């Protein structure tokens, strides 16, 4: 009894404390009647639906076109969100695209303002982006070379290219929150614009806080995109067996010899073959496949993965707090697969010549 009384009191107070700015017109049609049938509601909703179809979809607008937009606060919040202390003017410059500066200049010309008398104090982010990209590009390569010291230089480049494409950088920039801050003529913002802005943010950090902080930023936001990604799939090896043959020969081992280890369902559509690769009667790697040829090629790839020490049992990437004390060798260059193949051919040619003479 007491509980029910309390409940009614609570209801009554809730109703009496409704805000005065409550807009009844937008709310009432959502209210469900309990004791009747609202015969006009369905017609009303249908009408509204038809109107929306006639008018078409809502026009895409910049976030800054709404009234509750404070660019200064957003610029400040951007740095705070990422835990970085930017110099405000540098960060502002990082978001100014070249098209925006040109647009502003054109507007002034149309208005008849002399640009030399009243200079346009705007600088675009092109230079910052170049600086940022140079730093990011070199750090990504240095980091990968040190983490995967046995990976071929071509593989390192492939992973680097994957990380520094416009698409990937635009993806990062979008999710870090650059899209609303960018000042550019075109809308919606292009991938290239987003990527330039992200590079410029790195450049701005490099100018303001130095190399170490900028590299930490790259590690936290760019290299982390490799998580859950198989780096072996990023580099397409055209002739894995040829590369394996060259590697084994230069290490003084015998030629790779593929052997059929196991097969099942040979006459069915789901046939399976396991091929192993041996050198000097020693097992190197094995792999499955739908046919013997596919399995053999895959086994060669598996062998190369083992040589590069990037096989499936590799250690996870060192990122985050563990990477703070990473001792990176900035001058390191890994072995190149092209060099190995060239050496192998020179060696085989000289052997042939010596045997004939």
């Amino acid at each position, binding site marked *: 009894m007491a509980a029910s009384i309390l409940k009614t009191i609570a209801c009554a107070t809730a109703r009496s404390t409704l805000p005065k700015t409550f807009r009844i017109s937008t709310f009432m049609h959502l209210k469900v009647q309990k004791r009747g049938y609202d015969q006009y509601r369905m017609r009303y909703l249908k009408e509204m639906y038809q109107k929306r179809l006639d008018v078409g979809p809502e026009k895409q607008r910049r976030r800054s076109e709404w009234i509750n937009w404070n660019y200064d606060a957003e610029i400040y919040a951007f740095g705070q969100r990422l835990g970085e202390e930017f110099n405000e003017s540098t960060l502002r410059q990082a978001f100014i695209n070249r098209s925006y500066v040109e647009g502003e200049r054109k507007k002034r010309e149309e208005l008849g303002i002399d640009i030399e008398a009243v200079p346009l104090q705007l600088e675009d982010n092109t230079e910052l982006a170049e600086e940022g990209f140079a730093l990011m590009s070199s750090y990504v390569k240095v980091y990968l070379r040190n983490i995967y010291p046995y990976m071929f230089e071509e593989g390192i480049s492939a992973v680097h290219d994957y990380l520094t494409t416009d698409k990937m950088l635009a993806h990062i920039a979008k999710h870090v929150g650059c899209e609303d801050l960018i000042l550019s003529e075109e809308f919606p913002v292009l991938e290239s614009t987003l990527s330039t802005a992200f590079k410029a943010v790195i450049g701005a950090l490099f100018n303001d806080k130095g190399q170490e902080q900028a590299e930490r930023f790259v590690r936290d936001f760019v290299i982390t995109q490799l998580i859950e990604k*198989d780096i*072996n*799939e990023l*580099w*397409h*090896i055209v002739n894995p067996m040829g590369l394996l043959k060259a590697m084994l020969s230069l290490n003084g081992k015998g030629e790779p010899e593929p052997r059929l280890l*196991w*097969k*099942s*369902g*040979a*006459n*069915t559509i*789901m*046939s*399976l073959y*396991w091929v192993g690769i041996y050198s000097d009667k020693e097992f190197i790697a094995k*792999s*499955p*496949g*739908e046919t013997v040829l*596919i*399995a053999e090629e*895959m086994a060669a*790839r*598996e062998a190369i*993965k083992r040589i590069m020490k990037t096989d499936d049992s590799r250690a996870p990437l060192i990122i985050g707090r563990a990477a703070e004390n990473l001792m990176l060798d900035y001058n390191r260059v890994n072995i190149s697969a092209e060099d190995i193949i060239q050496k192998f051919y020179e060696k085989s040619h000289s052997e042939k010549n010596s045997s004939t003479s």
Partner: protein
Amino acid sequence: MAHNRVMQWAVLARTWWIYDANQQCPFRSAYRLTTYLQGLHKPVYHRHGDVGDHVVVFNTRHIAMRGEFWRTYKHFHHTRFAGGFSRASAYRVHEEDPTRILERACHNRLSGLDNKRTLMKRLHLFPDEEIPEEILENVTGQIQQVQAIPKKLEDYSQREIDSFPRLFKMPEDYDIESYKRENRLEPDQHTSKAWRLK
């Protein structure tokens, strides 16, 4: 590239197993074979995943039943018409179709599964040792038999039989041949009239 694709292929590809049903209990065999048919032996098994293997069984004509089961174990059937019920002893069914007993045993083992018919299609039964070549080429693994094959009296040499220690001597007038007599007059009480041996 694409090495992960073939790894997945290897996980999901179906293996073909072979099983020799010679002198094996059909019910205990069914327990083992349905494990392979459903894929219960795989770490990736899930009820809703289709990961079962193929099983090839030969020598189903030579299965062994314990006790009096050849006579007392029944197969039932109803045509759903009035009076359409019939039943048959296991030995009678076995005469009609030598793969039937093992097939029904596996079928009953899988009762309650939605994909029972799909699984049963992956069970290949052959009454004798002859298996088509294209099926034999698919086979990779062998399933262990459920019981050791017993040695029959015929397999012992006469010398071994004679040297076996005799505990007592039969009386001279003891009839030891009578169990071999064909008792045609006695009807098979356990089989419906329609199915009885003529």
